[in-house]
């Protein structure tokens, strides 16, 4: 990408191409729409401002690294102020907080439709951040082990163990979340 060609139009083009993906990743990391927005804004500002830092190669890997590093930094900084997400994402992509006022849908149906996804996001959010990032990149984003190693800047052996351990923990947390939901 030639920086000389950058203009407001190309900023918009880059934003439109990558911001939805960044926002989705941020949402899966944080489980919270407001935090995902902040994270996306910070990430996209960095991407647009520091485009000349990009040395070429896989642009998405660079994005993964920026978003993940920002997320981990924020998480460590704000660990003392945990917040509980009150949002749910429906299967059609809508956020439940916005969808609830719409009475045309049967609430029971919404709960049934979104219930498992709620538990999935909740279980994901309960994982320690190192396992969560690896699992999101692997199972939500579908990256290969090599791509995850590059994005997180860790050895591939660490990627293997984090995914393996992350899946075990996720299994436990999902079971716990579903059990708590039934009770």
């Amino acid at each position, binding site marked *: 990408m030639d920086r000389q060609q950058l203009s407001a139009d190309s900023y918009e083009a880059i934003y439109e191409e990558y911001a939805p993906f960044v926002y989705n990743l941020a949402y899966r990391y944080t489980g919270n729409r407001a935090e995902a927005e902040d994270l996306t804004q910070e990430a996209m500002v960095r991407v647009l*401002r520091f485009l000349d830092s990009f040395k070429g190669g896989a642009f998405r890997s660079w994005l993964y690294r920026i978003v993940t590093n920002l997320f981990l930094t924020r998480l460590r900084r704000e660990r003392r102020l945990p917040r509980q997400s009150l949002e749910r994402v429906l299967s*059609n*992509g809508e956020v439940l907080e916005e969808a609830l006022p719409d009475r045309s849908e049967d609430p029971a149906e919404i709960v049934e439709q979104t219930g498992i996804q709620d538990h999935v*996001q909740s279980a994901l959010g309960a994982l320690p951040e190192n396992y969560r990032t690896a699992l999101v990149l*692997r*199972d939500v984003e579908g990256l290969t082990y090599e791509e995850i190693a590059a994005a997180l800047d860790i050895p591939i052996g660490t990627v293997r163990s984090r995914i393996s351990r992350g*899946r075990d923990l996720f299994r436990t947390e999902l079971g716990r979340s579903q059990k708590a939901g039934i009770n």
Partner: protein
Amino acid sequence: MECQSILQDLSLFLDRELALRRDREVHAHLQRCSGCQATLQELERNRDLLAALPRVPLPPALFGRVVAEVSRAAPRTRLLVPPRPHRHLVRRALAAAAVILVLFLTALTVLGYYSEEPGLDVAGQPLVNRHALDSGAPLMGEPPLWVPASYVPGEVETWP
């Protein structure tokens, strides 16, 4: 014991990341162990659940905030390698200055000590080289020993 070892590798087996030999071992074990098979199915189901999470729509107002922030941004700095002062240049300049200072002070000391030009004493009276008075000529290699012009060789020196 075998199940414990197999369970540790189930995630890698699921992703086809095991070496061929180990992959066959796990596969053979799964054929005869319903417990490990159930765990594998659960891992597979969880992976599918994560993959099926819906894409979250991007808030439309976010672009304006990003553009405003980029426009407001301070002069460009690098993201991955933040700008740092050229510390090595500063260090070199300081070292050079120190060397020059030492050389200057040494030169002042040496030139003053070995100077063939007489100075003045505290009373403003001219000084002469005592070696020249003693022997008639400055000694080779001897630094001058400046004494008042009233100095008489052989006299006992008394100091006020």
